[in-house]
């Protein structure tokens, strides 16, 4: 049956489900209010928890008025370091690579503003909220360290999740010496908080030593195991349900202290407890994108080819844990250069610990790199798109490996054509619209790795002609329930409406982590393999059965399609799945599959999605108000399972690029360390009117190496390229090179 699944280097011929722009399978649930998010759960006897958070950034909590909180009507319990029961794992430990040091009332130390310092449990949300207020904490505060220059600088052992902090290839100093032109670019990027619309929530319920938690999780099996370790129960005693996530963006992958406190509270009060953080509390313990200060040097010869590229970044992290935005690594894999050097420095400040936020490193580093490329092109008097094409890399600049596929040239052409780039004047301040606004056009290259994690899936074909696919996959808006069901249908050889996909629960096979833009590739590979395994078992039954029209077809092979097995060399000879099972006396047949990268392909190829983003901005000539009037992107990301959903991911990412370029900016008060704009009135994200015209186009790309299905990913790449394109368009409109994101009006008032 090996010919049902082509060899790993061949391209899987999918059926009629993948590739279709189907509407979302969970669409009706989501438009009727029936999709259930964690905070929507209301088990019987539910109590409500609210945590109090620190208003200072460093020091100790010296008093909490627990008595005042306890006498408030409705308050059931107050948990502080004084009465917090022990946990089976140290919240300050690093049990695995996705463990972040967190606060679960292990002591009275305060290490950032917004840190949880007590938990109040009450009969109602209102009573718990008031109880937390009545705690009136007092502190022994120390001065806060905020900003690149206030914190302690150090050489980090790693950046991102386990990446080396420094890299060098060739001799950059020799490259600069040989260059006809050397340009320097300095860019700063701010702290950004994920701010998914769904505030992190958890409902915890104990039944003896069995725990059920409803909590949004981008890493269901990992979180289940973490809860089990903290509460010293076997993993199989923990059920974690996460059917829908109201936006994750990286912030819902990692366990955090208040989640543990809610589970503890449920055990202490002997009732289910719900804890939903407030919007303000999303600016503290839940991770963020650290700030960066980047310095780039580009050496270019007379032909417009890079002779050297150097990218240095200072990234902020907390005083007690390390996650450094790996910004400089964005220069590793894009533009061809004989000499490449990147370097990261860490700075410890009194905020919570940063974490992965949509395109961690790629977003901020791409913004710096694309601005630097534009500056070099302008200095050369070259069109910025032409300059990028002259430095197009045919192999990965860092490793020298060939790309598994790279249709970036086609993306440049498609994007430029759709945007109408031709005829763009080289000099800035050359274009105006009918209202007299300055108009500028800019370009940026988008790029994001195509990683895979590990996943398993279980498939069942039933005698009634239906299929079931089970996997703890994660629906967080990217459309996993839809795209993965399409892959399931093709793997099982069934029509889509005959397939049920069960996902979002730790009771199902481990679907891996929904992150790194690798979920469809990873979970999809497991699903396709499981489906194929079930079909293979069915084919074994049929081809050995003299009563089957497929008897003896073992060598020629059979294929499953629309609920029937067909002889590969004679389409007319076929039999329905149900008939095969019935004759064998079986109600159903199961298959299993795993998804992971082939190590041989991983060793041989560099794997990335690519794209090109073109921006038009309009700038008021007197007030310097900046508007992004058009954003056009063209992207190549291997096989697209559902173009409707992929385009939504890409345009959503591009609007994150608008947000990066013009809006998001978390400001911590340098005196107190408190976030000064910890709500949507002060921390700006784009509204509908900020994104008047955003279009994404898909460029065909066949990749025979990323995985058998040829899937890369589209979740994060839209953020890259976009912020740089907008900054470059602002320069083209005004003649001013922004040196900080977000670009503010005052930056243009020269």
């Amino acid at each position: 049956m090996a010919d049902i699944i082509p060899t790993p280097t061949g391209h899987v011929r999918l059926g009629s489900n993948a590739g279709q722009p189907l509407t979302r399978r969970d669409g009706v649930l989501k438009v009727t209010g029936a999709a259930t998010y964690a905070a929507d759960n209301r088990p019987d006897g539910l109590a409500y928890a609210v945590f109090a958070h620190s208003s200072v950034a460093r020091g100790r909590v010296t008093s909490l008025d627990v008595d005042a909180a306890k006498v408030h009507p409705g308050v059931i319990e107050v948990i502080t370091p004084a009465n917090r029961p022990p946990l089976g794992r140290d919240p300050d430990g690093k049990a695995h690579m996705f463990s972040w040091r967190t606060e679960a009332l292990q002591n009275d130390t305060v290490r950032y503003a917004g840190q949880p310092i007590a938990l109040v449990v009450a009969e109602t949300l209102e009573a718990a909220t008031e109880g937390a207020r009545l705690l009136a904490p007092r502190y022994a505060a120390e001065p806060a360290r905020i900003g690149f220059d206030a914190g302690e600088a150090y050489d980090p052992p790693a950046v991102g999740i386990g990446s080396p902090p420094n890299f060098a290839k060739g001799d950059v100093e020799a490259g600069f010496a040989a260059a006809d032109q050397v340009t320097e670019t300095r860019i700063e990027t701010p702290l950004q908080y994920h701010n998914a619309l769904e505030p992190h929530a958890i409902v915890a319920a104990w039944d003896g030593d069995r725990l059920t938690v409803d909590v949004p999780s981008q890493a269901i099996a990992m979180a289940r195991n973490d809860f089990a370790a903290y509460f010293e129960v076997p993993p199989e005693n923990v059920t974690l349900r996460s059917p829908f996530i109201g936006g994750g963006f990286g912030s819902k992958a990692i366990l955090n202290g208040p989640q543990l406190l809610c589970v503890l509270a449920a055990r202490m009060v002997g009732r289910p407890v719900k804890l939903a953080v407030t919007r303000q509390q999303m600016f503290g313990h839940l991770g963020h994108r650290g700030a960066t200060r980047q310095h780039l040097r580009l050496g270019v010869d007379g032909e417009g080819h890079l002779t050297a590229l150097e990218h240095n970044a200072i990234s902020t992290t907390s005083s007690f844990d390390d996650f450094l935005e790996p910004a400089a690594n964005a220069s590793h894999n894009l533009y061809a250069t004989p000499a490449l050097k990147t370097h990261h420095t860490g700075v410890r400040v009194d905020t919570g610990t940063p974490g992965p936020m949509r395109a961690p490193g790629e977003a901020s580093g791409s913004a710096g790199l694309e601005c630097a490329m534009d500056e070099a092109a302008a200095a050369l008097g070259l069109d910025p798109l032409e300059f990028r094409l002259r430095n197009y890399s045919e192999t990965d600049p860092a490793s020298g490996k060939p790309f598994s596929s790279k249709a970036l040239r086609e993306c440049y052409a498609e994007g430029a054509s759709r945007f109408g780039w031709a005829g763009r004047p080289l000099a800035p301040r050359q274009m105006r619209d009918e209202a007299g606004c300055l108009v500028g056009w800019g370009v940026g290259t988008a790029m994001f790795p195509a990683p895979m994690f590990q996943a398993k899936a279980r498939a069942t074909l039933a005698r009634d002609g239906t299929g079931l696919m089970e996997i703890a996959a994660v629906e967080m808006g990217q459309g996993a329930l839809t795209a993965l069901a399409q892959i399931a249908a093709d793997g099982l050889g069934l029509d889509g409406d005959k397939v049920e996909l069960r996902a979002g629960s730790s009771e199902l096979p481990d679907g891996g982590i929904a992150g790194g833009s690798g979920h469809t590739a990873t979970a999809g590979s497991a699903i396709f393999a499981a489906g194929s395994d079930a079909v293979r078992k069915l084919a074994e039954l049929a081809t050995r059965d003299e009563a089957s029209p497929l008897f003896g077809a073992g060598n020629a092979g059979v294929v499953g399609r629309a609920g029937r097995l067909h002889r590969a060399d004679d389409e007319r000879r076929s039999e329905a799945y149900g008939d095969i099972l019935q004759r064998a006396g079986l109600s159903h047949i199961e298959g299993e599959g795993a998804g992971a990268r082939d190590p041989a392909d991983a060793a041989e190829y560099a794997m990335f999605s690519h794209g090109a983003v073109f921006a038009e901005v309009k700038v008021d000539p007197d007030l310097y108000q900046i508007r992004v009037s058009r954003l056009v992107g063209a992207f190549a990301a291997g096989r697209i399972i559902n173009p409707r959903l992929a385009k939504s991911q890409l345009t959503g990412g591009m609007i994150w690029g608008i947000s990066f370029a013009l809006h998001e900016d978390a400001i911590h008060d340098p005196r107190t360390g408190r976030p000064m704009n910890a709500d949507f009135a002060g921390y700006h994200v784009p509204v509908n009117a900020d994104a008047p015209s955003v279009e994404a186009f898909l460029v065909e790309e066949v990749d025979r190496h990323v995985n058998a299905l040829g899937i890369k990913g589209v979740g994060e790449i839209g953020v890259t390229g976009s912020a740089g394109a907008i900054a470059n368009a602002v320069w083209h409109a005004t003649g001013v090179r922004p040196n900080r994101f977000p670009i503010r009006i005052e930056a243009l008032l020269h």
Partner: protein
Amino acid sequence: MIPNLTLTVNGDRHEVHLDDARPTLLDVLRERLGLTGTKKGCDRGQCGACTVLVDGRRVNSCLTLAISVDGAEVTTIEGLARGGTLHPVQAAFVENDAFQCGFCTPGQIMSAVGLIAEGEAGDDAERIREGMSGNLCRCAAYPGITEAVRDARQRLAQNERESV
């Protein structure tokens, strides 16, 4: 002593016994009446996820104390579909992929129903975008939302013409 509160929600009359003056309309809907379709995104009127119609007007239910709307007619996302048929705005949101994670979607849809009823935006995409800008979508499904509102308005207008 707080008198009982009477609310008509999606056509059903509810007597709510409140022993506390503090609950917002949002928390009464979600935690006491079990209508969890309406979402809490910020609890301070900045994101629009909690948008419901009160006596036909779109309001942020998180900024509305429940006792201040005693006797009101409230429509939530659970009350739009009729007998298993989606409201034209709901159908247009599905067809135009006007959401991703779905968390802001109930608020977006209620706001769109309100905006169309207000009759201020018409088919003008720019005015629709302005009129929908009180509802944040962090997934940034804005292009689809604008198309969905325009699409739904046209369907509703056509339904009206056909029923005359």
